């Protein structure tokens, strides 16, 4: 592998370099980009190191949580204030992968990977990016739908900390304890006066990128989370889904088992 590794002094400098060529990429943990450089997939001629750019900070002390894009899964797991995200981060690879894989990199993980992005989607995260036009904050769902990386550096992910017990996550794999997703589901189910208010439900491996389950959210909204509401949610579980066939599972199987796992998640079975 003969390619240029570049260390820069600022994110702005990285953005400028990213604009110089289609084979130039921003290197976070390496579990995606170096893998591609080793095995092929898209051209990688130059990697800009994210090291030393201040992208590895966690601010979880207040109502709003900010995770730097270079925060690793192991760092998420080690942060007590992010205990609700520990099952998500722990589900991604073995310890060595978790020491390398980053929050920002996970947004670019190819199907069926990207389970941390699923959690962020359910948390209603915003993505803070920097381009030649400067820094901006945008909706993660929109970002994931294009996953534009040319000329863009992801600086951070920002979201409102969920109420205690409001966040739920399930990942279904064929290999235990860790493996690629058959599917994953994350949900934030806040309640007001005993009724769901502002449900966010997201799926991984049920479409090319992580998606919101808007029909499920609508079915739950304003209802008590009882058997009837869960039935209603499960009836529309697969609305908007377009999973793929891969070695983990067929698209048909994913569609068939999604309602089962959604029911388990909503009814609190196997909650961590």
């Amino acid at each position, binding site marked *: 592998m003969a390619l240029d590794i570049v260390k820069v002094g600022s994110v702005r400098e990285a953005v400028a370099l990213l604009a110089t060529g289609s084979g130039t990429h921003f290197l976070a943990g390496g579990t995606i980009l170096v893998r591609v450089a080793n095995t092929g997939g898209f051209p990688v001629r130059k990697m800009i190191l994210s090291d030393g750019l201040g992208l590895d900070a966690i601010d979880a002390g207040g109502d709003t949580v900010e995770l730097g894009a270079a925060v690793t899964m192991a760092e998420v797991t080690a942060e007590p204030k992010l205990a609700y995200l520990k099952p998500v981060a722990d589900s991604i690879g073995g*310890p060595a992968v978790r020491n390398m894989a980053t929050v920002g990199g996970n947004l670019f993980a190819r199907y069926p990977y990207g389970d941390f992005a699923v959690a962020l989607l359910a948390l209603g995260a915003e993505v803070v990016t920097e381009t030649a036009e400067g820094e901006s904050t945008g909706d993660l769902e929109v970002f994931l739908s294009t996953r534009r990386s040319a000329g863009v550096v992801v600086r951070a992910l920002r979201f409102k900390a969920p109420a205690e017990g409001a966040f739920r996550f399930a990942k279904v794999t064929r290999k235990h304890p860790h493996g690629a997703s058959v599917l994953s589901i994350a949900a934030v189910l806040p309640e007001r006066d005993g009724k769901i208010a502002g449900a966010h439900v997201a799926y991984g491996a049920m479409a090319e990128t992580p998606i919101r389950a808007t029909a499920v959210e609508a079915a739950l909204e304003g209802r008590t989370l009882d058997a009837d509401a869960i039935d209603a949610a499960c009836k529309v579980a697969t609305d908007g889904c377009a999973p793929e066939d891969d070695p983990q599972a067929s698209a048909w199987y994913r569609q068939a088992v999604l309602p089962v796992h959604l029911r388990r998640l909503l009814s609190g079975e196997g909650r961590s």
Partner: protein
Amino acid sequence: MARVPVMLTVNGREEAEFVEPGTLLVEVLRDKLELTGTRIGCSQGTCGACTVLVDGELILSCLMPAERANGKAVITIEGVASDGELDPIQRAFAEGFAAQCGFCTSGMLVAAKALLDANPDPSRDEVIDAISGNICRCTGYEPIINAILAAAVDRRAAKSA
């Protein structure tokens, strides 16, 4: 492309090499330093055969450009034993028949060392998690898990002796 300098402390010894830009850490370890215990398996971060410690953290050396490791301390399988004495983890693998072809063993041992250095008394589930990024296609995992648990006992005994 001009070669670039990389300086590492590998198994306690300072090393300096000029490498092609983009050379992987595993390639420096194997091809430049002749530390061939670290394997190149899948080159995708899936098999764990290239597992080493960098500044005390378990990483996959097939996914780390050597320039990123510049100035850091690397421990490979060759650095697990000390003063010519096998680590209890290595002894437990040998005594428990936890290796067959041996290809995964280096990575397994380094992963086990990382676990036991951080957690001297792991549960069985913690051992399973610790080696969950390392694939063995020969023995099955039971002898490996049992060896790591036995090594934990030996290490604790050695420490309290």
